[in-house]
């Protein structure tokens, strides 16, 4: 298959590979552990930003408590691992599912509510989760959190000394985590592209544009909004499990309102509704604090200023707020070609 054919027949696969492949080479070319570790953290931010983008960017549901869903995923894996020795690969989807369930439960009553009220309700939820994790000492370890969480483990085939399987564990070395996060980002981006270029994706945008008209045109707005909210929470849960397995410690104060706002800023900075935009926003806001180490005290100040300036001068973000420009011309050609 020629390159241009792959590009037109599988545009999303092509894009994802194009933009993410360079990162595969990174640990090979740059052996700096600090860089790899930083980019792994950025990668988790990218996941979170993409996830929040589904609710905020695509559908227009302002979630100011996203950190809570991240926390729920992290604590789910941590608790499952602590009490039942649950391995990472099983804990991962369960964490996603738990976050998703909470997302749907919180969403059910809140989503009927007006946009700015939904923002405050989710903010409240975020705080309730954080405070609860902080206060329920017997179950969540309180302010000290949960320690000693297991890292992911893999059975790897070994050929030396006769073929057998060896259990290999992730370690403090960030490189395996880097590849894990990279893979998750690739899969998530790919799936989100597929979703956006479908009836579901269009429905989300229609709801964001004009919910009333959307419902009059046959879109069951409540159900679709719940799906968006649930999907968004699921992604946060997955990211949470990965985070817990990397840090091996979870504490409530990692999941505060400032984090929720930070992820929101990433989505907005990159361009609401734009999948690569979220990744870009995460990259910028994730690395900037490290680059500006000397200005650590001014971080919130600059962050606040950034948000103000962004909304006044470029509310559509760096990459602009629109979905992928579908090449309908080529699709039309395709449709004509196939019906001929």
């Amino acid at each position: 298959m020629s390159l241009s054919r792959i590009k037109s027949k599988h545009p999303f696969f092509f894009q994802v590979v194009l933009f993410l492949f360079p990162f595969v080479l990174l640990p090979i070319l740059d052996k700096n552990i600090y860089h790899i570790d930083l980019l792994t953290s950025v990668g988790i931010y990218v996941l979170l930003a993409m996830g929040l983008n589904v609710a905020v960017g695509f559908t227009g549901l302002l979630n100011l408590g996203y950190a809570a869903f991240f926390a729920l995923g992290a604590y789910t894996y941590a608790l499952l691992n602590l009490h039942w020795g649950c391995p990472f690969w099983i804990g991962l989807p369960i964490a996603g599912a738990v976050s998703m369930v909470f997302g749907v439960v919180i969403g059910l009553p809140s989503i009927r509510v007006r946009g700015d009220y939904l923002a405050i309700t989710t903010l409240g939820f975020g705080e309730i989760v954080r405070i609860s994790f902080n206060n329920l000492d017997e179950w969540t370890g309180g302010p000290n959190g949960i320690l000693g969480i297991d890292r992911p483990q893999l059975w790897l085939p070994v050929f030396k000394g006769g073929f057998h399987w060896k259990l290999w564990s992730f370690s403090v070395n960030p490189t395996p985590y880097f590849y894990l996060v990279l893979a998750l980002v690739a899969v998530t981006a790919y799936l989100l592209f597929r979703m956006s270029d479908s009836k579901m994706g269009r429905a989300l945008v229609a709801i964001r544009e004009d919910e009333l008209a959307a419902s009059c045109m046959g879109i069951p707005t409540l159900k679709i909004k719940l799906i968006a909210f649930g999907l968004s929470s699921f992604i946060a849960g997955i990211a949470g499990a990965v985070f817990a397995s990397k840090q091996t410690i979870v504490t409530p104060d990692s999941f505060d309102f400032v984090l929720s706002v930070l992820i929101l800023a990433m989505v907005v900075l990159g361009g609401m509704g734009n999948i690569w935009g979220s990744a870009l926003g995460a990259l910028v806001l994730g690395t900037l604090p490290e680059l500006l180490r000397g200005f650590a005290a001014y971080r919130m100040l600059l962050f606040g200023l950034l948000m103000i300036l962004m909304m006044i001068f470029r509310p559509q973000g760096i990459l602009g707020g629109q979905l992928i420009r579908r090449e309908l011309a080529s699709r039309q050609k395709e449709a004509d070609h196939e019906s001929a």
Partner: protein
Amino acid sequence: MLELFIQQILNGLTIGMVYALIALGYTMVYGVIQLINFAHGEVFMVGAYLALTVMWIFASLFPGAPFWLVLISLLLFSMLGSAVLGAAIEKIAYRPLRGSPKLTALITSIGVSFFLQNAVMLIYGLKEQSVPEIIPDVRWHLGDLSFSLIQLIIFATSLGLMFFLSWFIKHTRTGKAMRACAQDPEAAQLVGISVNQIIRTTFVLGSMLAAVGGALFGMYYGSINFHDGYLAGLKAFTAAVFGGIGSVPGAMIGGILLGVFEGLGAGYISSEWKDVFAFLLLGAVLIFKPSGILGEPLPDKV
């Protein structure tokens, strides 16, 4: 037993007055431009710090000054400073976004909130700042109940300001213009009201009330922290919605009631969970009764 109950109510009423002062700012701004002014809690916090600064100035320059002089000075200074701050925020951050979607303005207001919090932290430091005791510790006792001078001052100042505001809105030209803008800004403009000016006035008034609340808050609790605005702001917003967003008497009632409920909750349940209680109430009100006690439902125009 009964006395504990009444004491909790008294204490709750005290903090409720402060919440009411802050809530008024939220409700008035939402009434005119339908914006949840996230930064309003920070104005409250700045008011507290401005008052603290005045106390420090007096302490170093005029240590013998009588307490009522210090009190009046710090109240005036807070009000002045916050009025300027409120007008500046409105002009720089919100007015350029007047036609934009509401979520844009909400995000901006979060940005302003972060900015102010951090600015104050940089100026005054990370640690909790203790507020000097300006008001003499005079208490009146009735059995086991106690009521302090500070509480009296809070009651008097808050109620006084609330009455003044009610009178202002009802009887002055500006007040009537504010009500007109809240109901129908286009029509208000057509009859010659300068909507921009009214919006600015609304911000200024709300900020002044919040700042007084901050000053009183600082004196009552004896210490302040740059993060106080966030929490107090959210609770006051809860109160404003509870009373009916856009309704001035609603904000007053909501604030006072929230203070009482919180006081009872802290006394009888636990202080760790009282914030959760406030947030749950917030969620419940927003979901089940968004128009609040005294508010009117805002219909969607088709």
